[in-house]
C-alpha cells in the first residue's frame, strides 16, 4: 500500500513538472535537394589542349592569290 502511494506521488510530481514546462510551440517543415555540378566532356567544345593538337602550328602555303591585281589597286 505504501509502495503504491510512493509510485503515485512520484507520478504526480513528474506530471506536474512537465506541465509547468509546457509552452506553445508550432512547427512547419520544408525541404529541397541541392545538386553539385558534374564535369561533363563536351565533344563539340574541345579544351585548349585538344584544339592546339588538332591544328598544327606550321602550315604549308604554296602561293598567295590576291583577289585583284596591283594595277587595279
Amino acid at each position, binding site marked *: 500500500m505504501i509502495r503504491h502511494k510512493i509510485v503515485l506521488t512520484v507520478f504526480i510530481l513528474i506530471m506536474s513538472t512537465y506541465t509547468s514546462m509546457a509552452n*506553445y510551440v508550432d*512547427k512547419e517543415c520544408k*525541404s529541397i535537394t*541541392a*545538386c*553539385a*555540378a558534374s564535369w561533363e566532356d563536351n565533344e563539340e567544345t574541345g579544351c585548349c589542349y585538344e584544339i592546339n593538337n588538332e591544328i598544327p602550328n606550321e602550315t604549308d602555303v604554296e602561293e598567295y592569290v590576291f583577289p585583284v591585281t596591283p594595277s587595279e589597286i
Partner: protein
Amino acid sequence: MKKKRIAAATISVLALISAITGSYAYFTDKKSIDISAKTTNLAIEVDDREFTNEKVKNMLPGDSRELSYTVTNVGKADALVISEITLISSVPMDDTVEWFIQDTDGNFSDEDRQVDPEMAGKDFVDEVTINEVMDSKIKFVSLTDDSKVAKFIVNNGVLARNQTSTVDLLLTLGLNAGNSFMDSNCEVIANVYGIQNENTDGALTWEFIKDTADANGQIENP
C-alpha cells in the same frame, strides 16, 4: 409508570429543540457572477515558393545560392521564430563542412563551419538553450558520426501577430569540396518553429522545444 414519564420528557425536549431551530430563519439573498478564462493561440505559416530545387542545382565549389522562405504569424500571440536547417550530404563532409548555410552577407568563416567538439558525432542538438540560439544569427550545432548530417540553427527573431518576415539564407558549397562531391546531392530541410515569446524561459533546451512541437503535432494530427 416511570418509563412513560421519561418518554414524555424526551418528547418535550425534542419538541422544544425543534421549536427553537425553527425560529432561526433569516432573510437571505444570493448573487452569483462568473467569467470564463480563455487561452490565446500560436500558429505560424511558411511560404516556400522561393525555396526550390531549381535554385540549388548544378552547384560548383565556391557557389552560393540564395534560399528564402516567408514566415507569417497567423496566431494571436507573439512568436519567437527559430529555424533548424538540416543538411544531409550524400558524401561525407570534412571537419570544416563543405555544405553549409550562411547569412546573405556571406561572412561565414572556416571556424564557423567547424562544429563544437562537444557536438561532434551527435545528430541532435539537445544541449543548446534558447539563450544560446539568440546570441547569434546562425549557429552550426551538430555533425553526425558519418559526417553526412549537419545541423544549423537560425534565429529569425520575434514575429508579432499578423506579421510576416522573410528569411534569406545562402546555401554554399565550399571551395574545399573535392572531386568526391561531383554529382553529389545535399538535401536541405528547414524545420521552422514558432515558440511563444512571452513567459518563455531562456534556459529551455532546444530538445525540449522540438519534443514539445512534435507532441503538439501528434495531438493536432493523431
